[in-house]
């Protein structure tokens, strides 16, 4: 009979496993490699590049960007598009999601609503140029019924880009919102109703406070998408004027002036602006209840 040694320490393998490191952890490696190769490295390279401008100084690109209104105005231009688009998408998505949540046959409607995502921004832009252009059916129908006397300009300006961003961004916003709303235990609404809360009060006191953290995340993700708008700003907007967004400035620096260093700097500025907005929204989110939205069970 061999005696068992109760006093020796567990082996290295067991100790690592206790800290959550075992052979299954290795499955993370491919994704890690991908992340490092396709995101971390290019990002750090871009950051380094942005501090090596043509003029040899460290911050030359950044000085140039913030001293030229043609460049630094793009921040405001992009924000003026992205923020209203994101808010508009949320304002549309919440009521639709509230209705869809109660429907038995969600799949069909969800499919229809999600279709624009699969089409891609370019196809949507093409369609809009046809339908909403001066000779498109939107203008012709409005003129037919005498609503307008001459075609309304709906493309190649701010409104064209805005509309296309709403169309392509809405499904994404809607799906996220729907999942957050579905995550709220329906018994909470029923409980509020038995306590005398009418529909408006139930939304105001139960749904809204529980939704705000989710809506904040939805806002961030939708905003980041809208902020990096490029194709529709070029195709449907006025890329030299009112819809000269920051990604266009970066594109021009890179592929028209062949100044990769400047383009990197613009990309970095773009990232900082996005981060600032996201951080601000998440900060506001911290003011609200963020726990589970179910009928809490201890």
């Amino acid at each position, binding site marked *: 009979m061999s005696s068992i040694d109760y006093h020796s320490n567990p082996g290295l393998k067991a100790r690592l496993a206790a800290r959550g490191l075992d052979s299954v952890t290795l499955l993370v490696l491919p994704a890690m490699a991908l992340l490092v190769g396709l995101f971390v490295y290019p990002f750090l390279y871009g950051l380094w590049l942005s501090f090596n401008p043509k003029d040899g100084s460290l911050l030359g690109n950044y000085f140039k960007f913030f001293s030229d209104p043609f460049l630094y105005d793009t921040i405001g231009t992009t924000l003026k598009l992205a923020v209203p688009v994101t808010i508009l998408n949320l304002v549309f998505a919440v009521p639709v999601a509230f209705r869809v949540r109660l429907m038995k046959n969600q799949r069909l409607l969800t499919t229809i609503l999600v279709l624009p995502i699969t089409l891609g921004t370019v196809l949507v832009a093409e369609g809009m140029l046809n339908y909403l252009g001066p000779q498109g059916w939107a203008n012709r129908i409005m003129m037919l019924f005498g609503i307008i006397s001459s075609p309304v300009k709906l493309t190649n300006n701010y409104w064209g880009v805005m509309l296309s961003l709403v169309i392509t961004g809405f499904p994404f916003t809607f799906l996220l919102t729907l999942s957050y709303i579905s995550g709220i*235990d329906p*018994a*909470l609404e*029923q*409980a*509020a*109703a*038995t*306590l*005398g*809360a*009418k529909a408006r*009060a139930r939304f105001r*006191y*139960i749904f809204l*406070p*529980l939704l705000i953290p989710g809506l904040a995340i939805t806002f961030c993700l939708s905003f980041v998408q809208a902020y990096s708008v490029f194709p529709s700003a070029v195709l449907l907007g006025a890329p030299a004027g009112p819809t000269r967004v920051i990604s266009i400035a970066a594109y021009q620096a890179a592929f028209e002036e062949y100044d990769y260093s400047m383009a990197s700097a613009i990309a970095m500025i773009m990232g900082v602006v996005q981060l600032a907005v996201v951080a601000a929204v998440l900060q506001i989110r911290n003011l*609200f*209840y963020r*726990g*589970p*939205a*179910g*009928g*809490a*069970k*201890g």
Partner: protein
Amino acid sequence: MAPSLSSFKMLRLDGVSRDFGTVNALRDLTLTIERGEFVALLGPSGCGKSTALNCIAGLLPTSRGAIFLDDQRLDILPTEERGFGMVFQNYALFPHMTVRDNIGFGLKMRGIPKAEAAARVEKAIETVRLGTQAHKLPGQLSGGQQQRVAIARAIVVEPPLVLMDEPLSNLDAKLRLEMRQEIRRIHAGLGSITIYVTHDQDEALSLADRIVVLRDGMIRQVGTPEDLYARPAHLDVAEFMGFRNRIPAKLKTRSGDAVAIDVSGVLLQGIAREDFTGDDVIAAIRPDDLFAGDTHEGGIPAIVEAMEYRGRDFFGSARAKDGTELFFRAARRHTPGETVALIADPARLLVYGAAQ
């Protein structure tokens, strides 16, 4: 607006029915409940008890029938205008509100002035003994404490009717017993009607003034706990009330309710609980009333299969000659394979027709 507690006398359910497609989840629930009564809706899952509760609360529209509080028709009002208190199975506490705000929500919705509302909330917190927890969020409370919050939230508005949907099913056994007494005490203090849905007959027996047994959406029996325990009207009710032994038998003689039956050649005395035609009957008896004695006379012979120790006595299962499984009580541990004679208490042996 919501009916006030002070004025009402009774709740009347008149043929309340609910269909889901072609399924009749609830059929013709007709019942009058007096103020101050504690009524339990008892039945196995899928019997329609929760459907009944949701129809009364207004969370499900009724398909037919009407609900009256005295003369006021309630089933046409939306949930928020009925003014009933409801305790949900998962409590449905608002996770983002403190205990105090949860309890005060109903008063806020009724537009009760802040000072009065605060006083009533404090009183309710005291009633359910949550004094030190009032500032916490529900997520920080234990299951039993959440349960108390749910009850306080439902009763603080002093509703004429409190609905409880299996409120104790998520608690452990010890807490369940404690909360039973609490619920009974709170009900007595409130003086309203409580309708309590459960599938646990012990809970129903210990809490209710009156028990309504439902099955397949229909009322099978309405009666006091004593009635239901001793005299279930139908075999399925008997089974549900703990008559685990169903023994096929032949009717020998009957005079009034007293019957003599033949079980595998043994003549037993029993009590008939319904009218039946033909000789085939089913005798139902609780395991506690079927005793493995030391004499073999007048007992049903059966072969012991398993025994378990219960402290005061033993609980066993055995098989009769015809294959019927029998559960019984014993004073000592019989060995599996041993033949025992199971003596039935004639006053507790209920006889039903076999035709169902």
